[in-house]
């Protein structure tokens, strides 16, 4: 695994698993219509964490109703469905109102893609700050490693999230900007989440 911090690229010569293939297939459709960035658990898994997940979280840039309708039609054409609703306008309304919506392969529920619009400046920064992961069969945009660590460690904070943060930090410790993690920490503190 090679991380070029100047180019913001990670070259990953891994054997792809079913989850990676599933993500690449979905992203191939999505990116024809809208910019995206993958966040949270799948980022750690892509980078080698020894666990799986049932959902892949991602932000898509805000787009208008018509463009969303084109994206939705393309997903339907490629045998995906939305778990939350079937009508394009209804799904769009959820997104506009800051709900995440889930897409999976038709008649399946997991794994699924939890898609949401960025709801504040912090979320929007994930796009500008993204890293491109170059895989043998495609490319994926993921959130910055510092953001990944900070959200997991200082906001989400479950055991699983703390372990995800530890994994990413250990692998890239020589290349991570510690000050940037603390900057995120300071921003996240007012939004502190309490886990059950």
């Amino acid at each position: 695994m090679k991380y070029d911090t100047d180019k913001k690229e990670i070259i990953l010569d891994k054997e792809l698993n079913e989850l990676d293939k599933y993500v690449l297939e979905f992203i191939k459709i999505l990116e024809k219509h809208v910019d995206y960035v993958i966040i949270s658990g799948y980022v750690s898994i892509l980078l080698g964490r020894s666990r799986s997940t049932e959902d892949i979280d991602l932000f898509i840039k805000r787009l208008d109703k018509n463009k969303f309708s084109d994206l939705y039609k393309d997903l339907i054409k490629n045998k995906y469905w939305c778990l939350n609703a079937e009508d394009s306008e209804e799904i769009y309304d959820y997104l506009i109102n800051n709900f995440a919506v889930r897409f999976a392969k038709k008649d399946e529920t997991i794994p699924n893609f939890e898609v949401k619009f960025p709801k504040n400046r912090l979320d929007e920064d994930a796009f500008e700050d993204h890293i491109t992961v170059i895989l043998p069969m495609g490319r994926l945009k993921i959130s910055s490693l510092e953001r990944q660590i900070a959200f997991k460690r200082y906001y989400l904070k479950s055991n699983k999230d703390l372990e995800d943060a530890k994994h990413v930090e250990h692998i890239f410790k020589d290349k991570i900007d510690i000050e940037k993690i603390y900057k995120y920490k300071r921003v996240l503190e007012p939004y502190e989440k309490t886990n059950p």
Partner: protein
Amino acid sequence: MKKLIPKRDNKEDRINFVEYWAEYVKTHPDKEWSRQQNRLIDSQIQNTKQIKLNREDYLKMKKEQI
């Protein structure tokens, strides 16, 4: 690679393993660690295909029923 030293506390032991595995990933070729990771992930995906969970029940389970 250093040997994995067992810890008494479960949480501590898990973190210990996370660090051990991360070191393995860092020091071994991508193809080598990913082959092992894939066994875990692919078997889970196969298992989920056996469980027919409809979308209403899934969203209810996630407390996202709308």
